[in-house]
């Protein structure tokens, strides 16, 4: 299917199914129940899953395949966001041109940064990308204020009148897709459950599926093979008469375009941009997502992005009262002890949980959650196989 092997087609279909049915899958608990706060099926968060999924997929194309660790990827996301919002402010409130422009501008910017940074490798490359990203952040924050809005960032205001907007004077434009507003949703009530199907989410879903499909194609292509060769032995590649830089630069630009797409989608969903989107901690976050999920795997970055965003939005909301409610069945003393022990890791302390998990993954599971899953599956299979062998080798009595 679509030029994929059977296994990859199945993977793509599974992802397609998961993404399309996410409003159901992420909303397993009925409204008003004690567990309802674990529902992740609201549009805002689901969009984030997809957008950061795209961002991480793109980062993975660079880091997972070539091994070049960029610490400045958020800059491309930020540049894409600024491009998209200007397209909406000046040209049209339709999101498609904005997103395309975001991809193009982020691609051009990453070509520039990549051309310079890729002259070095290893830690030097990381520092160079970090330096470029921090420079973009500092400039967006201060000098480029006419373009970036400085500290306050950019929003769509009632004074903006796009070329193809057809707005009444004083009306605040809203992002739309050929007239359909991004935040329009269809709500479905089934019993106690409320499922929200949001237009913005499905637009992001289409882009994410395309991005995922392209990443599978790149992974399986001769080009992807070359990128892996860069990671395993660049010198040997040189001796064979190939130019590694050409491949790494292409990978860098592609991954920058993915970041631009993510930035454009972010603006499409929520029409505002601020420079903090380019700060180096944002670059660090995508690194964490990718490694946590599994660098160099197809599903890893998506899983990692979902995992981190879930922690950030759901686990961070757990407070002491909720913990007391959970452990209410225990005797009082024990309850207090447990609450005190768990509390630092949830709520505002979710960063701590993330840091510890990240360290554990780097130390014990260099392949990330995906490798963890594979190991479990293997263990399970081996046990089964061993059982079968035992059964076979026992002489029948």
């Amino acid at each position, binding site marked *: 299917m679509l030029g994929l092997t059977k296994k990859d087609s199945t993977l793509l279909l599974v992802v397609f199914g998961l993404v399309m049915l996410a409003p159901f899958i992420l909303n397993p608990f009925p409204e008003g129940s004690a567990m309802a706060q674990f529902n992740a099926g609201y549009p805002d968060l689901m969009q984030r899953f997809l957008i950061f999924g795209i961002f991480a997929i793109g980062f993975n194309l660079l880091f997972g395949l070539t091994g070049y660790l960029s610490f400045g990827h958020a800059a491309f996301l930020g540049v894409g966001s600024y491009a998209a919002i200007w397209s909406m402010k000046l040209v049209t409130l339709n999101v498609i041109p904005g997103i395309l422009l975001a991809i193009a501008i982020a691609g051009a910017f990453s070509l520039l940064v990549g051309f310079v940074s890729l*002259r070095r490798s290893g830690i030097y490359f990381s*520092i160079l990308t970090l330096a470029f990203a921090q420079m973009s952040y500092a400039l967006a924050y201060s000098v480029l204020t006419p373009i970036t809005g400085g500290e306050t960032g950019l929003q769509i205001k009632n004074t903006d009148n796009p070329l193809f907007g057809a707005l009444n004077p004083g009306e605040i434009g809203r992002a739309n897709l050929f007239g359909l507003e991004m935040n329009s949703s269809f709500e479905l009530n089934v019993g106690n459950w409320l499922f929200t199907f949001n237009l913005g989410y499905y637009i992001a879903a289409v882009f994410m599926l395309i991005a995922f499909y392209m990443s599978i194609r790149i992974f399986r292509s001769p080009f992807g093979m070359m990128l892996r060769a860069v990671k395993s032995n660049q010198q040997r590649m040189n001796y064979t008469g190939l130019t590694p830089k050409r491949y790494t630069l292409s990978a860098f630009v592609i991954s920058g375009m993915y970041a631009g797409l993510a930035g454009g989608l972010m603006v499409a969903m929520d029409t505002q941009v601020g420079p903090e989107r380019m700060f180096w901690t944002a670059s660090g976050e995508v690194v964490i997502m990718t490694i946590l999920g599994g660098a160099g795997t197809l599903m890893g970055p998506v899983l990692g992005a979902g995992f981190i965003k879930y922690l950030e939005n759901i686990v961070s909301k757990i407070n002491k009262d909720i913990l007391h409610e959970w452990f209410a069945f225990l005797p009082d003393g024990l309850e207090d002890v447990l609450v005190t022990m768990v509390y630092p890791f949830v709520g505002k302390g979710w*960063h701590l949980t993330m840091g510890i998990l990240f360290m554990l993954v780097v130390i014990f599971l260099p392949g990330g959650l995906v490798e963890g899953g594979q190991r479990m599956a293997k263990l399970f299979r081996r046990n089964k196989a061993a059982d079968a062998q035992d059964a076979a080798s026992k002489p029948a009595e």
Partner: protein
Amino acid sequence: MDQIIVQILNGLDKGSAYALIALGLTIIFGTLGVVNFAHGALFMMGAFCAVVTSKILSASHKVVDPTRTDFLGNPMQVDTFYVQDFFGMAAGQAIMDWAVPIAILFAIPVMILVGFAMERGLIKHFYKRPHADQILVTFGLALVIGELIKYFFGANPIQTPAPPAFTGSLDFGVFLGYEANTIMYPYWRLIYFFFSAIIIAAVFAFLQFTTFGMVVRAGMADRETVGLLGIDIDKRFTFMFGLAAAVAGLAGVMYAPIVAPNYSMGLDFLVLSFVVVVVGGMGSLPGAVAAGFLLGILESFASMPVMVDLLPGINQIIIYLVAIVILLTRPRGLMGRKGVMED
């Protein structure tokens, strides 16, 4: 001219902090070959050593003072500091005022122990893994340490004042024949500069003039041969890690009065000191120190109003700009050695 002197002075204290952190980073890289992204966190832990010391020293208990009454007519309760109980009023007050310098004594053993624990517990297992893994795991550690500090000390900066004897400024211009009040320089920053100069000199002297230091330098040049000579080089490298941690910690202790410590200062300094290390040349100790001061001074020059008018925003990006230019023109940094992280 006086403007230039002011900027050089202003750059010195920040430059000293960069130089100390970069020195520690380079020691770790040169000996163990590990890229330690948690070094900023060590700097921050040093600053929090100062916070903890000053909290411990100002621990107090309430004592009922029968001679005075509060506004309801009850005997008044007065906060009494334990140090004043032990050492008398005046001496106790002096000890509390001098909390930051006293914290140095507390920070050295603590930071060396932290360094040992980090190296033996975590980093030891990463010698054979790629540099990217080392960066990632220490980056994770930096996040965890930062969050722990945030959990125990809260997210707000904690003011830790310098001893009252050092508040105020030195009229530096008078020494150079300028009129009074043209060049003012806070005493504490001057002390910070001398302090870091002493530490840097001590580290270099230790490496240059002691047998231990000689063995360590030999190990940096050729670890295997030193090992073959029957020297337990690993143990010495672990000690060097502890030393590097202590240097970062001391930089942090003394920096606490300049910038109130908070949980994110480690990461802020980390990024800049990495740039410093790379500019100085990976693995070169003099390079790290020189680049630290150079970038600190360049940064303060770039914040001069003249420069900002000329090139808007230059004060924000100067360090990164210099790093990019140097990396592209002198790939090994200012004083990088051949063969260190060349690939």
